């Protein structure tokens, strides 16, 4: 198993340059974001649309570089992508010409695995997300939830210390989402990965995360600890939902977001 990592963001700034009608326009997507994630912790990033969640995640992944500030994973400066981080994209982004198995193999091939080891490893991760039977299907023959699970298996298979997920369950129906949330919790219990995920769903944030980072307009507005027991009762989501802590924290975040939304409407 890979060594556990700690993710640190310190005063991270990201400025995009946009060309609008021949004029350069600056977009301050992140204006000095700082937070850190402990090894094995699950952290949720949430906040109104356009507040910079995806940008922050892409910078941690190394798909985008910070304009200023520093990003460290396991003490090392992030420079580009690495096998120590795995990304689950919002829309799975499977390669349409590869089967479910082929897609999981992709990351492993890039890591240099070959032959029997490659196939066995890929199969075992498909099994982990409950898709062994469908491994020969291509993405267009899979449902949305199945695609998302292939995406998760692909990221997990390279055994990254940090799993980054951008609204992984956002496009799914409530039932499928609950199944996948439970799966994620059990994968976390089994592997102890550090997980950072973006979500718009407050229930999901409180249900899964140890801490919720609340962002608004490119800044961290608040970081809220969730003191729910872990491992959280798997599948039995009702039990967690009834928990005082769940109700309280959910309300707290809702209020914070709401205040932000109202003030942004007023100003």
């Amino acid at each position, binding site marked *: 198993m890979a060594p556990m990592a700690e993710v640190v963001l310190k005063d991270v700034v990201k400025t995009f340059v946009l060309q609008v009608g021949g004029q350069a326009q600056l977009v301050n997507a992140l204006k000095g974001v700082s937070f850190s994630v402990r090894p094995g912790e699950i952290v949720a990033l949430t906040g109104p649309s356009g507040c910079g969640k995806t940008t922050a995640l892409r910078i941690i*992944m*190394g*798909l985008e570089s910070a304009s200023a500030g520093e990003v460290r994973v396991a003490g090392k400066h992030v420079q*580009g*992508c*690495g*096998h120590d*981080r*795995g*990304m689950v*994209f919002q*829309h799975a*982004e499977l*390669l*349409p*010409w590869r089967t479910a198995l082929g897609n999981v193999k*992709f*990351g492993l*091939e*890039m*890591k240099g695995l070959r032959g029997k080891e490659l196939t066995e490893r890929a199969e075992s991760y498909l*099994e*982990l*997300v*409950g*898709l*062994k*039977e*469908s491994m020969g299907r*291509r993405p*267009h*023959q899979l*449902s949305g*939830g*199945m695609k998302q699970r292939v995406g998760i298996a692909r990221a997990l298979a*390279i055994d990254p210390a940090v799993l980054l997920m951008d609204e992984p369950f956002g496009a799914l129906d409530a039932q*499928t989402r609950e*199944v996948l949330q*439970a*799966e994620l919790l*059990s*994968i976390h219990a089994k592997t102890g990965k550090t997980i950072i995920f973006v979500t718009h769903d407050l229930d999901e944030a409180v249900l899964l995360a140890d801490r919720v980072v609340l962002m608004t307009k490119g800044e961290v507005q608040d970081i809220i600890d969730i003191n729910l027991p872990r491992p959280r009762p*798997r*599948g039995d989501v009702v039990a967690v939902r009834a928990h005082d802590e769940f109700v309280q924290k959910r309300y707290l975040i809702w209020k914070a977001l709401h205040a932000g939304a109202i003030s942004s409407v007023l100003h």
Partner: protein
Amino acid sequence: MTDKALPAEKAADVVVPRAKFRLANGYITALSLIVVGTVWELAGPGMNPLFGSYPSAIWKAGVRMAETGELMKAIISSLQPFAAGYLLAMIVGIPLGLLIGRYRTVEAALGIYITAGYAMPLVALVPLFMLWFGLGFTVKMAIIFTLSIFPICINTWEGVRAVPKTQIEVGTSFVASPLAILWKIVLPATLPYIVAGLKLAIGKAVIAMVVAEFFTAISGLGGIIINTANQFDTAAMFVPVIILMVMAVGLTSLVGWLERRIAPWQTEISGREAA
């Protein structure tokens, strides 16, 4: 994990025979050919045999030419430079298109020649080609190559430009090397465009072949066309014309068959009506 997994994950339980649709389409094409052929056959004999011909007359002329061995010789002498020129265009055109599409510097340096070359009036250049390459196999091959490389290259180039950034980012996020991204993401993502280019190039290559034969050696199928036309033997002239068209149709469906073999996902996700 699996116990709680969603249902609906049994391996494909029912296998629907899909050859049925193929067969139906084949029938439609055959029926269409019979109707057109019959109308032509009935209307043809009324025409002056100088100005036109009809299927049974063409068939008789074809049999006559086949018996003398003239036809087979012509086909072989046409097909050799055709295959060589077309394959060479493929071998050069696809990698060139991939590089031009992928790297802006290569695009800036070479793109303009490809775009200009596509519109090149080849017929005007054939005499020059003859000066360079003589009158034999080489000049035919060069002309076929020159005319077919551009649609292949341009289509590949266009296909690479259409590869979604998100697919490239999948490669990047798994630390794929530039070569791996080109080979394992850009190439498969571009395949449908490449195949379209290969199909367009078949028509171009057939035209190039006939043009080459008109101008250079009076040989091959193009040579037969010229000779029979000069003798006002219209029925015989139609023989190589029809052979060329049949050949183009055959090659196009061969490329289509190859596409279904190499890129089966493409036909499956395309939004075409099934029947």
